[in-house]
């Protein structure tokens, strides 16, 4: 059975008919072609499918698309624009925080949400903010460096949010 949903994804408004049992992850990936959001388990354990929904991170494999009716969603595709990479993405590139890259969209969305809420997280807060995102390649070390380079204290004193 399908239902019509309205939602905003990366500032674009969508009206779409979806099966009631389709997850948000599958909806994004297979119906909208936003394949930047990854699936590493489909059971809410890996965080690869992390997106920001109404200002909070969620595992999109655990949310039904119909539950996102009316929501404002940010996915990895919404972070960069014509001018280039988001500074956080740039930091991931420069610090070598990406290896296979399968976890990266989820890790970056969690980091973005963390920095949106707190522009100067401590190292411990960064660890906690990323605790739902598994990465098997990097040992997290360079991920921590990338996120921490975007803390306001480490950005030459600029306190602007990123």
């Amino acid at each position, binding site marked *: 059975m399908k239902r019509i949903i309205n939602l905003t994804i990366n500032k674009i408004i969508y009206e779409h008919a979806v099966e009631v049992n389709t997850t948000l992850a599958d909806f994004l*990936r*297979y119906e909208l072609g*936003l*394949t*930047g*959001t*990854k*699936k*590493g*388990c*489909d*059971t*809410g*354990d*890996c965080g*690869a499918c992390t997106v920001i929904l109404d200002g909070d991170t969620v595992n999109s494999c655990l949310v039904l698309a119909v539950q996102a009716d009316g929501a404002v969603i940010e*996915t*990895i*595709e919404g*972070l*960069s624009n014509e001018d280039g*990479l988001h500074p956080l*993405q*740039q930091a*991931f*590139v*420069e610090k*070598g925080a*990406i*290896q*296979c*890259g*399968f*976890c*990266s*969209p989820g890790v*970056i969305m969690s980091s973005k949400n963390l920095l949106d809420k707190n522009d100067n997280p401590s190292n411990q807060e*960064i*660890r*906690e903010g*990323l*605790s739902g*995102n*598994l*990465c*098997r*390649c*990097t*040992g*997290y*070390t*360079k*991920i*921590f460096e990338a996120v921490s380079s975007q803390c306001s204290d480490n950005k030459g004193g600029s306190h602007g949010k990123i």
Partner: protein
Amino acid sequence: MEKFDVIRSYAPRLDAPDKATGKAIFTDDISRPGMLYGAMLQSPHAHAKIISIDTSKAERLEGVKAVITSKEAGTIKYGVSPARYDETVFATDKVRYVGDEIAAVAATTLEIALKAVDLIQVEYKVLPAVLTIEDAMKEGAPQLHEEFAGNLCAEVHQEFGNVEEGFKKCDIIKTTTMKSKRQDAAFIEMQACLAEIDRRGTLTLTTSSQVPHYVQRTVAMVLGMDVGKIRVMKPYVGGGFGIKAAANHQELVCCILARMLNKPVKMNFTREQVFKYARARHQFTHVITTGAKKDGTLVALKHECYLDGGAYTSFGIATVYYSGALLSGPYKLPNMSYDGYRVYNNKPACGAQRGHGAVIARAAFEQQMDMIAEEIGMDPMELRIKNMMNAGDTTCNDLNMSSFGMSECIEAVREGSDWDKKKGTLPKGKGIGMACGFFVSGAGFPIYRSDTFHCTVICKLTEDGGAALVYTASAEIGQGSDTAFAMIVAEAIGIPLENVRLASGDTDMGVDLGAYSSRQTLMTGHAAKEAGEHVRQQVLEVLATQLNTPVEELDIKKGFIEFKNKTPDFSALRTRYIKEHRGWTDNPDSEKLTFKEASRIAFLEKGSIVGTGKYRPHWLGGKFKGAAVGTSPAYGCSAQVAEVTVDIETGQITIDNITDAHDCGKAINMNSVEGQMQGSISMGIGEALHEEVIFNDKGEVLNNDLAEYKIVTSMDMPPVKAIVIESDEPNGPFGAKEVGEGAIMPTIPAILNAVYDAIGVRISELPLTPERVYNAIQAYKEKKSA
């Protein structure tokens, strides 16, 4: 010191911008119009006879396009080592583990395919199952494979030197037994594939693989097709760690369905299926006896090992050899014997995982090194320095150390960890421990017997002269090989990295054995270097003729032509180039002649400038049985110090920090080398402290998800100091060798030695769960008070 312009730097990876923005394409991101979805029926029993299979109900379900069993798929045997092909696409007579493949469906949606799988009716006669090595080896135990009596999949018996005689000369002899548990590689991208066939009969398989080349050969063999009619491509791959280093059932099933239906078919493993398919690190039991003299000189090693293999061989023959062979280094050890047994049982097959075969052996042996050091009152670092090999040494089993920065590694971690100050002075409950590592830099031989080159690389200059395009069949699986090869080509030609574009992971681009045995940097790196040098030479030759200058006078550096003596007048060339480019925006404005101009002129004279490179190791290794395993053109080595805190009341271990040094030869990309070290450490910590695939008595995996199978998270990862040691490897491209697998070697024993330092108890079984540690402490206390 040789000056490099591109390599030995911290280069951002070529693929990172696409991966950071979600644009990088992985297999499951690809869809095709009219694509079908495949799903497999897998055995619910660990051991059962198949009496009958009825697919009629499934076939009648609307949307189902095909249901196949061994009738359609055939019974051609395949596997990893040609010496032990023991698998068929589908089980025919019986199933041997929970998950053994029986049938598959293709349907218009995944939902229908899964429903159809449920409708396939199989009548089984359940057989008694054996789930442990001990049960499998008992007299009269149920047999998995008729051809292999006693469930013995493979055995190895080797002796180098004379161990008995050696022990007679020893003052100290230590025997210990060490047990590990089965691992899962827990890469984040689950296996996925997409097969499609074109009107001319070419089958293209896009798959999450580390080894397109071997997958291509296996598909050809199992489907009975010409190799030339099969193209295997891997897009970006979300990690593999060894498990994706062979063709899996899903890939074969997907190809069979696509060929049969003339439609694209996609298949994905669920996370549960990743655990069912397994092929990860074996469970090992090592019994090790080491003998040394009072002064610490190692004399002899007697080693016995049992591998819990699961239902099929997979990489197992190589694994059982590796487990023994790689203990001959990094220390001088004149006498070594090895008896290895790989045993079948009714669990999923184990295979190769990062540090293939050698990780637990290393963990056991490095603990014995510490025990010997303690007994003779020597610092563990000193004992290792006393015994380590040097460049030029050969082990008792004929492995040759062409470069060996072992002492630099030990000194680096000694200093980096403040060892001298901390060792022996930490309070109870806190400990510091160290260990060394040793690994091959690429397997010396292909998995099948062949004189093939192990890799080929093509480099073509674009006709405008602006870029070098590199084509390689090698497998970027996250380790950074694409970037490393682009850097190597840039260095070889003498142009900036930004002027190199690279495409990889496609069997149409050449031969490359793939990403396993820590081989790509050294091996494909050689081919990449040769291909770059080949185009460089062609450009310089044209230039030499055009400018009437001897070719030896010419050089290319940072994208410019350098003239060793005087600069000839090249204005005619420049004018010609500019005329060619009327209306273009990229006219040269430098004083120097650019590579771009030179390469355009070369094109005008010769047509497309194409360079080729290839690599095959020189003949390696001894003549004894099994000598092929362990031989390599070079060996990586490492040293590591771990600091831990053990809560004596609960047994909980916290890793406080790790200091690691790895000799990777000349580092191509520092970023990637450090990344491999840090990633290896996180995997090693997981294996040491909590990773274990747990089965129930029916042979089902109990913790088949990433919540219950616990890998290291951002909360567990300690601070890591990664120190890159650069020896100059004569057999490596620009002096480079491995880091990807060898880096995992020292982590587990360094932690074990640190835990001993903290609590005074040796724990002989992994993982070091709080319960196990607590019990060990209690047992030790009781023994002491008794």
